[in-house]
């Protein structure tokens, strides 16, 4: 009940943030040079461009355009891709592509956490020792590589040179799960390695701080095994920052998937955003990027609430 109230209390600022973010997005779209309708259908006559401008509200001022887009979204009309002689509903694109991107992000998060949690705990436990130093050096190197560079290197090494996996493509898990996993390995690793580095370093710092807390010393002095102390008494309170970071990254990762999905030809929302940008489909860009900001806010709020459940100290502080 308390959580529900908390959620409702956070709903208003959440909506406000989404409105402000999407409005700023509209502003940026309108600042792009050139006539947006002409760029959407470059080979079309002026009369068609005028029709599209009228339909989308691009012939109005900034507020008029934004209101037209927002009221459309609120009534389930997410806009269209415009062509000379037809159009395509963006809602259909979202329905097809969003699940693929969410799956990719989920896999990347799982892999990143699976790497980061044991590595962060052990590094913190062995602070300053050889393992910690080597792990820090490797992680620092990994995090300095952008995802797209890792993607191209992985593709060259694992797909072309070693021939272990395919460099491009996507198969739904329902169609062929084995092939699905095989095709997702490279994109997931390209996204996950950078994340894992960040997570490990966050967890390591928090665990080092927690290990110095009195209750940890007390637990150790009671004769509880090191493993039990680490997992039960240290990891749980130290995971708050990690959880928050992971949640924040959920939104940010959709942005990261734009390049990764394009390189590996995965038909997710990032792939669609890339081509919408290339084709200057302004309405589609606005809707798809707005979706990222909505998800960003949603995941942030959700993790805030989850943190309150997992860490009683936060709840008490807020109360």
């Amino acid at each position, binding site marked *: 009940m308390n959580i529900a109230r908390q959620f409702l209390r956070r709903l208003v600022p959440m909506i406000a943030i989404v409105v402000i973010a999407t409005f700023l997005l509209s502003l940026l779209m309108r600042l792009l040079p050139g006539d947006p309708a002409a760029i959407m259908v470059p080979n079309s006559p002026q009369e068609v461009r005028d029709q599209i401008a009228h339909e989308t509200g691009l012939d109005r001022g900034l507020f008029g355009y934004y209101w037209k887009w927002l009221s459309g979204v609120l009534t389930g009309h997410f806009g269209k891709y415009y062509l*000379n002689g*037809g159009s395509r509903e963006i809602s259909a694109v979202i329905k097809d592509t969003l699940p693929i991107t969410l799956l990719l992000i989920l896999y990347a998060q799982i892999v990143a956490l699976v790497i980061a949690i044991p590595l962060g705990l052990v590094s913190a436990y062995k602070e300053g020792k050889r393992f910690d130093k080597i792990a820090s050096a490797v992680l620092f190197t990994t995090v300095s590589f952008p995802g797209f560079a890792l993607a191209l290197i992985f593709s060259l090494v694992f797909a072309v040179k070693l021939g272990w996996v395919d460099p491009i493509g996507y198969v739904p898990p329902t169609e062929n799960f084995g092939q699905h996993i095989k095709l997702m390995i490279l994109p997931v690793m390209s996204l996950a390695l950078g994340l894992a580095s960040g997570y490990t370093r966050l967890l390591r710092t928090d665990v080092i701080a927690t290990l110095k807390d009195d209750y940890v010393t007390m637990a150790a002095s009671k004769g509880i095994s090191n493993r039990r102390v680490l997992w039960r008494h240290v990891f749980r309170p130290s995971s708050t920052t990690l959880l928050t970071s992971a949640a924040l990254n959920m939104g940010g990762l959709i942005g990261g998937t734009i390049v990764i999905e394009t390189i590996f030809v995965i038909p997710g929302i990032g792939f669609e955003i890339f081509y919408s940008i290339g*084709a200057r489909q302004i309405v589609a860009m606005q809707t798809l990027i707005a979706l990222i900001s909505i998800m960003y806010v949603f995941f942030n709020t959700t993790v805030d609430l989850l943190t309150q459940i997992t860490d009683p100290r936060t709840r008490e502080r807020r109360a």
Partner: protein
Amino acid sequence: MTQRQTTRSRVMRRVGAAIAATIAVSTVASTGSHAASTSAIKRGGEIKVGIFDTFPGYCMANNPANSSLMATRTMFETLVEKTKGNDFVGVLATDWSSSTDLKTWTFNLRQGVKFHDGTDFNAAAVKTQLDYSRGGAFAAGYPSQAANLLYTLGTSISFDANILSVSAPSTYQVVITLDRAQNDFPGTLYASGRGFMRAPAQVTNKNTCSTNPIGTGPFKFVSGVVPGNDLVVAKNENYWRKDPNTGAQLPYLDKITFTNVKEGSQRAAAVRKGSLDAGMFTSGSEGTFIKDLRQRKSKVNEYRSPAEYYPSIWLNQTKVGSPFANKDARLAVSKCIDRKNFVKVRAKGETIEADSLVGPTNIMYTKTGFAKFNVAAAKAHVEAYKTATGATSLTFSFPTDTSTASIANGKFLQTQWAKCGITANLVTEETAAIISKSFNSSATGGAQMGYDSLALLLFEGTDVAFNLPFIVTDTFKNNPIKAYFAKLGTLLNLNHHTDTAVDTLLYDGEAAQSKVAASAKYKAALAYLQTNGFMTAVQRQYYTLFTTKKLGGIGKLQIEKGKTQRVVTNWGIDWTGVYKK
């Protein structure tokens, strides 16, 4: 008979016997190999092909480029097709003839062909397609229906501007009347592989014309709408064509997925690994990947087009602020391009240095007047330009798209021009934005060609029909339909010149009764363009398709006995006769 003669005669007999034996063996071998290749053809299977272009839609006003044109051509067919020998052969038309004045063309259509929606391919369907693509439907419906037909307006109107009327005197015969004499009219209908015959149900629907392709081709549309999706096509079970040599029903493949792999390195990697069954590449910007794949002969096969694609640098003569109304300005820019170095550095040697606006296989080809690289001469032209106009510098805008290759090409040229005292201001914009500013197909006019210059590949091939609309001042000439399209006649003339001497030479060439007479006029026209520096060229390029060893039948299928289609062009290959081994 001397001993020497006897010996000689014996040797000759042996040689003769050996030749006869060789011929016999090779005949048996070739018969055997033909039989083997016929029996080796397998039906069914799905393949994936990597392309580098996206799909703009499937209606008349949407112009698919190169690799996306290849994909689109699996669903649509043209009335005529080009053979290896550069002549035209009927596909949906069986034969054709023209009146002696070359102004009336009669096409007999193939019977028994169905569109994918089950409707009959006939003269009425051809008339509908041509009337909608040439602006005839717009003009007939004007003004009451104009708003509903705006989607038909596009570059096709400029291409078909010579058509006065289309009539259907019988179910399978079309008569096309032209404004001016045109000896190469089949080339206009072919439109470099874009002269699609669409079903009336597609053409007349303004809401779905771009998204619901209905053709007569070997494959049917399954899914894939713009901008970046895969295009999936499936076998047309009712396809009309059979292999003219074996009688086998076509096509062989069940399904093809054309997938856009923007990254050339990934496309190449996927072909090497076998994730893609084939991938198309352009030598203009993907020389590195082409070279890499070419080294993997054990894994891939290469099918390469002739270097018959001629990118030009168009120089806008009428835009306010553009220096190119002045001949010296044009010649300065043309003479200050180190083409040899460009080909070596930017194209990794995978293109050919231009010595004319078109290549040697084109009927217009001549080197006369083509501005060769000469820094001193270019500098002299710059000074002459300044003296004549009072300008303090020769400065112009030069757009590049946002790809790294395009920007690098632009910077390379910019550096070269700077050495001659010419300032090129690079304007980097999205391709769509550049196209929208360069071609404004408004029926009522408006701003056209928003840049001082533009590097764009428009010239291609061996003939004139496809290239002419980009050169002449007015494609409509005397066609009364131009009353409805104030500026579309000059839409494709990116130089926006007003010199009708060019029109006269080219139109005279198209009106000539012999190929020799036509060629002389075309060469004169090209020499005129080159001497006056209307535009210039840097290189000639080709397209290439790499496939895994699993694919067979590429380039083997004949359109009719003895008539083999060009194997690879800018639109790739024909997938009708391709099979999976």
